[in-house]
């Protein structure tokens, strides 16, 4: 099955927050902030992701052509093509479905929270208030995707600011849109190459940095950065074993020779 994705056109979002409501409905979540215990909407200037809120629409005041403009930025897991969370999880609690959804399995989670700190978009959130907590994040409605449906958020968008489809097709479409209106759009598809590519893609008329997107991300995947070291792991062990064995044999032989030459005998250290 083709890798699925969602194209978010920031310019089309009207901030209705339907997607946040759909997310809560499909995932059986309430509106209580787990930290403050206050009921709050998942959209607004202060809206933030938490373990109980997998997507938000954040209102952002930005400058555009010398005027202050209001933009609405949907936030959720970007579903990286080569996800950090998955690669850093030592219990393999994250995996990718064949549709490209990055899935979390709380059964396997040990709770080290490495995924939280390793995520380039700071998406995974923790159930701090629970005695047996899980990491929480958008699952790309994998249960809906498996039935050929759009994720809850994309299915309810009244302005088609969120469009669900095959990532390749969406990427082509995104380029088409921004090329057609070069004066309007920033000529960049966010998510095309960020950390090696994400399945959620964004286009915008305001620079992404002004909207709170991290702009210092590498264009290669984070796991590949870690792999710059981990690929040496076998070498370290084999090389280390060989090196130490060599040194061991050499130095112990030298000692034995020295002992034979009649120097002071040591009884205790025969190893």
């Amino acid at each position, binding site marked *: 099955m083709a890798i699925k994705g969602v194209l978010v056109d920031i310019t089309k979002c009207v901030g209705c927050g339907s997607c946040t409501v759909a997310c809560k409905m499909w995932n059986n979540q309430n509106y209580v902030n787990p930290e403050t215990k206050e009921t709050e909407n998942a959209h607004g200037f202060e809206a933030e992701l938490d373990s109980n809120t997998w997507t938000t629409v954040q209102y952002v005041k930005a400058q555009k052509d010398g005027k202050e403009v209001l933009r609405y930025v949907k936030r959720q897991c970007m579903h990286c093509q080569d996800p950090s969370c998955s690669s850093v999880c030592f219990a393999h609690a994250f995996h990718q479905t064949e549709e490209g959804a990055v899935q979390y399995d709380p059964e396997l989670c040990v709770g080290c929270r490495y995924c939280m700190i390793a995520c380039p978009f700071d998406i995974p959130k923790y159930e701090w208030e629970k005695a047996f907590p*899980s990491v929480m994040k958008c699952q790309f409605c994998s249960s809906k995707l498996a039935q050929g449906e759009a994720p809850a958020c994309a299915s309810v968008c009244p302005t088609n600011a969120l469009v669900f489809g095959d990532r390749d097709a969406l990427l082509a479409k995104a380029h088409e849109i921004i090329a057609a209106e070069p004066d309007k759009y920033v000529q960049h598809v966010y998510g095309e190459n960020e950390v090696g590519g994400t399945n959620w893609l964004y286009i915008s008329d305001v620079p992404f940095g002004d909207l709170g997107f991290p702009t*210092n991300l590498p264009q290669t995947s984070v796991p590949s950065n870690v792999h710059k070291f981990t690929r040496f792991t076998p070498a370290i062990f084999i090389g280390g074993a060989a090196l130490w064995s060599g040194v061991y044999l050499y130095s112990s032989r030298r000692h034995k020779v020295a002992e034979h030459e009649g120097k002071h005998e040591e009884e205790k*250290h*025969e190893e």
Partner: protein
Amino acid sequence: MASKRWNFRITKTRIVMLVIFLLTLLFMVWRYCVGLGASTNLNDAYPWGLWIGADMNVIALAGAGFSMAIITHVFHIHKYEPMARRCLLISFIGYVLVLLILIVEIGRWDNFWRPFVSPGIHSPMFEVYMCIVAYMILQAIELVDVGTEKVAPNFNKKMQKIMPVIFVIACVVPLGHQASLGSLYLAMPAKLDGIWASTAMPWLFLLSSFFVGPAVAILEYLWSSKRYHMKTDIDMLRGLTRISACLMAVYLVIKIADLVVRGQLGRIFEFSAVSNLFLLEICLLTIVPIIITLLPFGKTKGGVMVFSISAVCGLILTRVNVVFTGMHAHLGGGYFPTWFEIFSTVGLFCICILAYLYITENFPIFYGLPGDADGETELESAPSGFNQAIM
């Protein structure tokens, strides 16, 4: 050996430490009931806090066991052998402390076994975890070797056949986790400050934990010598500082080269809080100790001690800088541990010190100390020093 009695001296300090530990256990029960949110200041912005910082440091310092083992068991530099077993012990206890802290720290402690059945093989954390577990098993075998020396000499004789292999493997495994600790942060290339974010980090972590090992060993040695009024072999310690200093110089060169290659050299002279902390780190970890070894002062007991303290502090700062300083700009906001995070860290540290004292007083750890022909007399004489013991 039937007449041999197990012994544990009780002093006020030890009682206080025991009480702190027992209270820690009690509070841990509370923490398991209420979760991390209520007991700690960890939050979604700061998922890692004091405990992880402490673990990073303890693992690095527990590298003493492995560096001393390499020096004595692999390179067979016999004059440092008095240090080997002592470092084996403090290293093992250090790793126990790491696990104890992790049991408090991880959210799903009941799932600790999952990585064995569901391995995330690409994770540096997996490598750290597996290496630490493997290393602790190896260390346990080495400790059994030490422990059976007196109580089961026949069994011990048999063990000697496999010990060389164990020693070598035990010198290989830590390479994995010491370096992997550094690679943990390779996963945050856009978050960690450029001063530290380097693909050389694993190697620098490995190297620094290695050369700070002797410093840890020296401090422990000096402390024990004082407790038991034993003579100190300054020449031996001096030799260790020189080995250490050579590696420090290598580290310094690599570090600077790394900064130059990545175009970050200018950053360290910004004299911002971040760059100042980096400068402090690099001075304490390398420059100050190297200078000390070059001075006549380095030949004195005081010099050796300052060398070691500086290096240990420098190492701690290295890890703290990565975990907190380098991440602060990205994580933002504030994190300061709660009383529970601090108390439990102290409490678990206490039980480890108590365990260390208990073991050193009952097992031939100090054999081969200068002035003692064999471990037996040393052990027998040890309790006499207890009344003046500093702990």
